[in-house]
């Protein structure tokens, strides 16, 4: 179906090729997962399939590509539209009109199809993706997951033979991401659609994929093979697979289900009792910390957004001692971001009181609070605007009336030394995230607030973020982060607070909370169900050295 022969590609004004002599063959009906670190050339490779490269981006192209016998280099993306459906990463930026139904018609209108045919196809696609209830909605009112469903539907109306998706779930929360991936699997199974998907969340898709395409770095030859075979070669994998590799489980298990027999044989699985869960819920949250060493003290906080009826926060009591690392979890709309915004004064309680480092947020402006509290917003792009990263840091310092200081320790800890003089917007997603962290943390706030810090990051980037945060905690900083990323929580957090409908549902030590939960627990914990083991390191630390040979 898709054939690459000695394909090389140089971006304009670039000396080094991103793709060098790439040859590969993908059969009809295959589900191929494309993995690799950010910036390795995954997106470039995918864009060769519909001719976006070289038509949209320019540059130098060599070699031949054939998709169902057609040449994308000759036909260009417009000529390939009926054959290759292409879905992009950002759910915000791929819509032309504001109504779902009109958006679905857009591609067909471009092909000049008749109205009767358009009607029929729209009905079919709406049912195929189970989004018939969205047809009259405005796109701006949809959630991120719904938007990606609509984006997929809007290319399926042309009945393409190949569907190419460039990190379609990286901006979504886990539940929404899982729904999108389930839909893709169904399309592959039911329609025999050939699917190429680039994705960071291997733990979700590895079991659906027929083969995995591993793109190690720009200019390096990619490897295409069976999932277990490729994952055995790759260093950064989901915790489950890392554990399996260390413990030399063969054949490599891809899911909890496949791994459990191995774990049981190794005598690692424990059966939790109902009592564990009950004791956890009965225990009141830790209140023992003396009042003066509280970093955050929320007392009966209520907040309702203007123009809505339902309170977003309902009587939140939350006390965080200095030096604690708290993870806020819960589904979208449960109040995590609202709570964080209260801690920096962007929102003020309508009832109750919020004290941060002893300061009442109602008595201080956001700009003053920002001296003591560093808030890193979800989208680092909202923050960065200067010509170089160094200027970004100086800008923050100047805002607070501080002299430029020696920030080399922070820069080193974030691994940003090579980028200090670069334009921040040219950095990769992970580097941008760290640049935003640097721009906020340069004033050394005592409390650090993070809103979804791992969105869009791959495994190495998550790993380095976790390492950095642990370092900050070791320096005595208090960290509160809202996240959906259970593995990050397992690795760093001491305490987990789960919100639901604006209330604190569970508040307790990370190990206890995660072990007793079905969704909020890490892969290793799901596998072993033992509160001593949240991460691979925990398991390895608890084993006699003879059994472990990394």
């Amino acid at each position, binding site marked *: 179906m898709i054939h690459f022969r000695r394909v090389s590609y140089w971006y304009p004004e670039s000396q080094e090729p991103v793709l060098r002599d790439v040859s590969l063959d993908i059969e009809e009906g295959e589900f191929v997962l494309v993995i690799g670190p950010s910036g390795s050339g995954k997106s470039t490779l995918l864009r060769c399939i519909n001719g976006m490269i070289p038509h949209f981006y320019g540059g130098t192209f060599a070699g031949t590509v054939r998709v169902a016998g057609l040449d994308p280099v000759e036909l260009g*993306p417009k000529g390939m539209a009926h054959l290759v459906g292409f879905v992009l990463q950002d759910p915000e930026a791929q*819509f032309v009109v504001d*109504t779902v*139904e009109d958006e679905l018609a*857009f591609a067909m209108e471009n092909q000049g199809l008749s109205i009767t045919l358009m009607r029929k196809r729209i009905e079919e696609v709406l049912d195929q993706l189970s989004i018939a209830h969205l047809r009259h909605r*405005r796109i701006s009112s949809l959630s991120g997951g719904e938007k990606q469903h609509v984006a997929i539907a809007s290319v399926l109306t042309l009945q393409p033979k190949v569907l190419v998706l460039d990190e379609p779930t990286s901006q979504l929360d886990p539940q929404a991401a899982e729904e999108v991936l389930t839909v893709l699997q169904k399309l592959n199974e039911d329609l025999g659609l050939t699917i190429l998907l680039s994705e960071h969340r291997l733990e979700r898709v590895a079991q659906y994929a027929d083969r995995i395409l591993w793109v190690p770095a720009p200019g390096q030859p990619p490897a295409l093979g069976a999932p277990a075979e490729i994952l055995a070669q790759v260093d950064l994998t989901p915790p489950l697979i890392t554990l399996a590799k260390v413990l030399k489980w063969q054949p490599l298990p891809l899911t909890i289900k496949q791994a459990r027999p191995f774990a049981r044989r190794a005598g690692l699985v424990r059966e939790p009792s109902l009592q564990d869960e009950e004791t956890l819920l009965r225990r009141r949250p830790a209140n023992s910390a003396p009042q003066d060493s509280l970093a955050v003290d929320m007392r009966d906080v209520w907040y309702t957004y203007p123009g809505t009826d339902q309170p977003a926060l309902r009587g939140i009591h939350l006390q965080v001692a200095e030096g604690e690392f708290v993870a806020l979890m819960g589904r979208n709309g449960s109040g995590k971001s609202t709570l964080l915004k209260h801690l920096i004064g962007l929102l003020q309680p309508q009832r109750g009181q919020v004290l941060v480092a002893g300061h009442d947020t109602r008595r201080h402006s956001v700009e003053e609070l*920002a001296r003591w509290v560093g808030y890193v917003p979800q989208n680092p*792009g909202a923050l960065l*605007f200067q010509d170089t990263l160094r200027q970004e840091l100086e800008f923050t310092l100047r805002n607070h009336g501080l002299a430029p200081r020696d920030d080399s320790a922070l820069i080193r800890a974030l691994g940003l030394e090579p980028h200090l003089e670069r334009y921040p917007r040219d950095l990769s997603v992970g580097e941008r995230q760290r640049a935003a962290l640097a721009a906020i943390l340069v004033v050394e706030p005592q409390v650090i607030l993070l809103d979804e810090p791992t969105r869009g990051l791959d495994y190495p980037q998550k790993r380095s973020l976790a390492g950095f945060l642990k370092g900050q905690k070791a320096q005595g900083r208090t960290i509160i982060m809202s996240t959906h990323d259970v593995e990050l929580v397992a690795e760093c957090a001491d305490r987990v607070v789960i919100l639901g409908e604006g209330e604190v549902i569970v508040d307790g030590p990370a190990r206890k909370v995660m072990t007793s939960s079905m969704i909020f627990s890490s892969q290793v914990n799901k596998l072993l169900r033992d509160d001593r083991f949240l991460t691979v390191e925990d398991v390895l630390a608890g084993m006699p050295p003879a059994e472990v040979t990394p």
Partner: protein
Amino acid sequence: MRQEYHPLAWLAWATAAAAIALMTLNPLYLTLLALAVLANYRVISLRSPTARQWGAFLKAGLLIWAITIPFNALMSHHGRYVLFRLPANWPLVGGAITLEAIAYGFARGLSLVLLLMIFATFNSAVDTARLLRRMPAFLYLAGMITSIALAFVPQMISALQEIREAQRVRGHRFRTIRDLLPLIMPLLTTGLERAIQLAESMEARGFGGSAASISRSLNYILKGMTLAGLLALLAGMFARSYWSRQAWIGILLSAGGLLLMTAAFWVQGRRVRRSRYRHELWLSRDTLMVACGAAAAAGILIARALNRAALFYYPYPPYSVWPAFDWRLGLLYALFMAPAWLLPPARAAQPKQLPLPR
């Protein structure tokens, strides 16, 4: 989203109503027309998801009206019917407060509010983006660009909010114009990044794909025509304001420019091979609605042609503060209520989706 009337029917209705509203200051006729428009607005706002925004817009209009009346009364001291007097030594406002001044402020303000009401009704009733996409083929590209721009606006507003928060938590204070730079720069770059993604997504779905290819030379000729037309149009506008004696030069230039541009668009539009998904049905009630609007407008125009003073109203002496009223004309104004009359009873609007905090 089912539309109650054909967008073009609404366009005809709104044009007629606005033209008629501009023709008189007679407060009785204006009030009648305002009530007719209000009836339509009420009916439409029950069914339209966008009506809420326009409600706020109308309230602003009412506020301006409420300010106009006392303002005019305090500033203008002419008239026979003196209600009371303010001390003459008060600057500007001192002197007689007259019924005429109040009547004039009322009528002026009402005619403004009326225009806003017509605008709000039209916008609540018609999906503007969809109307733009109904452009004739040769204006297709222009309509497409405008509709994308409209869809971009809500996105940019939420991005702006996000950026403002992000800069505030860095301790940035917005005090002078210069302080807006950290707001505008990320907004521009974000907008640009999104525009590139959008372009990619449109191209991948074959946008502009099936246009018949044209020769390179014809392409240059078309571009030249568009540019020349635009220049002629601008030159004509300047010419008209500089040589007001020879107005015909400017008019000729502008007309020539428009003609050139239309021709270029038309040739380009002919190459676009595409179909349209939306075909709103033109129902009998659309015809009726347009007929009512047209009949009312025509009747009023004829009445005015027969008697130049039929619509005239000016409260200050030597004219009368009491407006004239002819019931036949009144009936014609009331005809603008037609859209509300002709509709079947409204269903309750669907509850609006509440935005969730992110």
